[in-house]
């Protein structure tokens, strides 16, 4: 029965060239031990069988199935991002809707404090800001109207800009995300 060293020598011959001394030692041992010589032959058969084993080819539909599954996975991953955007939009709208309530609360607070002068000054400031905002918006609308009246192609450009921006976002968002992760 082969000892550990002889077993190791038998295995090593399958992976690498043994030194002449080690090879001579193994041959001498196998010549005098027919049962271990038979075992060595079986090891070599296993080795040959594995070395000549064919590679299995993937079914033709595999690549297509992978890409379909990938598309599903990618769209599933994008769903939470859309939900996150909707949540942010919802919060912004709620905050805007809450503005009159906040102003009313502030007015009540100032009234309670009994400082009519301070309240009047605050209201004046707020009114001035609102008037300024409305004036700016009116100027912007007028500027856009003038531009569109002068150049009708600008309307088409503005309409085209929406899908182009969306496509740009779809293409570059994964890269930005990957950079953020790295």
């Amino acid at each position, binding site marked *: 029965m082969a000892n550990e060293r002889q077993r190791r020598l038998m295995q090593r011959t399958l992976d690498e060239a043994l030194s002449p001394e080690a090879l001579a030692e193994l041959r001498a041992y196998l010549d005098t031990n027919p049962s271990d010589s038979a075992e060595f032959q079986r090891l070599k058969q296993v080795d040959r069988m594995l*070395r000549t084993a064919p590679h299995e080819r993937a079914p033709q539909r*595999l690549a297509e199935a992978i*890409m379909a599954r*990938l598309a599903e996975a990618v769209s599933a991953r994008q769903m939470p991002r859309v939900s996150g955007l909707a949540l942010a939009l919802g919060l912004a709208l709620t905050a805007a809707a809450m503005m009159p309530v906040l102003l009313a609360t502030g007015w009540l607070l100032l009234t309670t404090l009994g400082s009519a002068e301070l309240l009047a000054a605050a209201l004046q400031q707020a009114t001035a800001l609102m008037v300024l905002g409305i004036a700016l918006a009116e100027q912007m609308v007028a500027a856009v109207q003038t531009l569109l009246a002068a150049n009708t192609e600008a309307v088409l450009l503005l309409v085209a800009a929406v899908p182009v921006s969306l496509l740009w976002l779809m293409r570059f968002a994964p890269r930005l995300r990957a950079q953020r992760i790295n």
Partner: protein
Amino acid sequence: MSVSDPIIIQWVEETLDGNQDAFAELVNTYQHAVYNLCYRMLSERTEAEDAAQETFLRAYMNLQRYDPARSFKTWLLSIASNHCIDRLRRRRLTWLSLDDPLPPSLSLSSDEPDPEDATITNERSAAVQELLDNLNTDYRAAVVLRYWYEYSYAEIAEMLDTTESAIKSRLFRARQALADRLKQETHADSIIRPVLETL
């Protein structure tokens, strides 16, 4: 481990830029290597196909972790082998015994030109698979990566997250177990014996 071709690196970068067509090129290039590994590990074509799909999906999701200084194929096969090992362990947990070998499929693929050659190839493939079915999960992974992909002990150790001596020992024991199995292959309906005679 060898570095990937520049075109492979380019496809990886384009995939990271969101170009799924570039990833389709990677799938076309490596689908056979990944499928073969999954089939040799799992011994069942439908499950091998599913595992191959899962491998590519995981690769896509983790592509930013791939180091271009290393071989992409090695990285991909590492994902595939670890995924197959997990599947085999789960299979064992669900009491689907590995002692009941699944019947080898001898169906021909439509792209194989010569039916006779294909039959011989399939018989040889099935015989090897019957031998592999006798090995435990870790031994099987080492044998498949060594013989089908010609990785060194060090490379296999890195792929399976273990030591070089552990891989050497697994291959030693695996070959010994397979040689013992050959000794028992004397029954008339063995599919291994006729293949051995052709070697």
